[in-house]
């Protein structure tokens, strides 16, 4: 069995957790960038040892760091993602400014130097040189309807509006998808030049119903969007208003599969992850989205929910988790899988715990419980 690395980004830096061959023992290495907010820490599947990390600091603003040696050394991007200055404006004039780089996605396999980044406030950026310099995806950031789609930069969630879930279709490098919290899901078929919304069937309970009974085209709040890595017509997304699936071989309308989760748990949450080979199998981690939106495990009893039939039914998986009084949750970048025959499932919590299941979610063990609040978890299979 291959060995795996878990790349962990946290509110206070990043760590690498290295497993042995059977995923039973783990060694924690780090910290890297201690004190910085690491929103996303991602390995390049196209180049062994190449990694990108979103590094932010409350004081010093956003940046991206690059490692070519599996995190041993880091260099800062020469030109991090930044919005264009307003033409003709005086320095200091109002204009858009990146607060943090929230999401990093490697480009298509055929373009080994391409990366995409999503920011807060919502912006889409592209690098053609392995993450060293970044340019705006103008077709998105400067789309005439962009502010209509997502509202103003101050109209966001408590820790800022975000562009996330940047997806490059493995079967078509020109096909891109993004999610915006808020704003909705958008899709480009021409490598980012033009975009259209992809939100049909998705609830928007936080807006009044339209008087003519029609649906809103955009303005939704997807929390996490995923495309199956083999079957690109199969999409899932965890939304502020429920859990959805879209099989594009059957139509273009999202189906609310979250209605099949237990009613006392609900279908609100942030992360969703798919089985690497089976497009009907997924894991989610619902949270309490009732009342004051505590964003904790429902009832203080953590559980992953697992579907093997595309969301028609779900199985509760909580063996090994605390049985009560556990009030953490799992953020949108913090649920990951490996590609072993018995798929390993990994999650990082707001309480700084890193958990692993070696049997597709049936049993869970804590790898460590003492990290800072976890912001991202990625799994790398070593060659």
């Amino acid at each position, binding site marked *: 069995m291959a060995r795996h690395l878990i790349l962990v980004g946290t509110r206070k830096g990043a760590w690498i957790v290295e497993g042995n061959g059977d995923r039973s023992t783990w060694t924690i290495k780090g910290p890297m960038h201690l004190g910085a907010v690491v929103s996303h820490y991602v390995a390049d599947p196209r180049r062994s040892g190449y990694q990108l990390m979103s590094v932010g600091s409350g004081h010093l603003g956003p940046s991206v760091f690059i490692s070519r040696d599996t995190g041993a050394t880091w260099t800062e991007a020469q030109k991090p993602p930044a*919005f264009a*200055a307003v033409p003709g404006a005086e*320095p200091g004039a109002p204009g858009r400014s990146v607060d943090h780089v929230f999401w990093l996605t490697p480009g298509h396999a055929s373009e080994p130097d391409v990366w995409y980044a999503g920011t807060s406030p919502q912006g889409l950026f592209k690098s053609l040189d392995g993450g060293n310099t970044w340019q705006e995806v103008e077709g998105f950031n400067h789309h005439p309807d962009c502010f209509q789609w997502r509202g103003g930069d101050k109209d966001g969630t408590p820790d800022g509006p975000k562009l996330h879930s940047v997806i490059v279709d493995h079967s078509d490098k020109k096909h891109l998808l993004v999610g915006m919290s808020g704003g909705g899901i958008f899709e480009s078929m021409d490598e980012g030049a033009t975009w259209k919304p992809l939100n049909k069937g998705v609830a928007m309970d936080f807006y009044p119903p339209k008087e003519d009974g029609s649906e809103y085209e955009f303005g939704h709040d997807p929390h996490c969007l995923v495309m199956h890595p083999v079957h690109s017509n199969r999409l899932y997304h965890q939304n502020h208003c429920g859990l959805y699936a879209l099989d594009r071989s059957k139509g273009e309308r999202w189906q609310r599969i979250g209605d099949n989760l237990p009613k006392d748990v609900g279908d609100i949450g942030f992360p969703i992850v798919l089985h690497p080979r089976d497009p009907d199998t997924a894991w989610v981690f619902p949270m309490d989205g009732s009342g004051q939106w505590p964003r904790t495990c429902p009832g203080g009893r953590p559980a992953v929910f697992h579907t093997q039939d595309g969301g028609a039914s779900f199985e509760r998986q909580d063996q090994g988790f605390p049985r009560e009084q556990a009030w953490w949750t799992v953020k949108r970048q913090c649920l990951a899988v490996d590609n072993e025959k018995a798929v390993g499932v990994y999650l990082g919590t707001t309480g700084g715990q890193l958990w692993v299941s070696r049997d597709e979610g049936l049993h869970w063990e804590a790898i460590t419980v003492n990290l800072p609040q976890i912001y991202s978890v990625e799994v790398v299979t070593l060659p």
Partner: protein
Amino acid sequence: MIRVILPSQLEDYTDRLREVELDLPMSDGGEATLADVIAALESRFRGLAFRIIDEQGNIRRHIAIFVGESMVRTLQAPVRENARVQIVGALSGG
């Protein structure tokens, strides 16, 4: 000569220096601007300017810059010969 005091947050960019002296060209009235100070710092410590000034030319929200004992929020602030400029990581967060 302008004396610049740098915060700990910028140590990775300044080779651990916490204080530098800059010789800047002054106007006939004996003034430069804070923008001139930042440009001189950038030419010496590449990448530093974007860490304290955002892409729209604003001083970042949690960075404070003092010229003498006055906090300034614009790069057009005048800086006189022999001034002391202090860049501070503002108290924030947790």
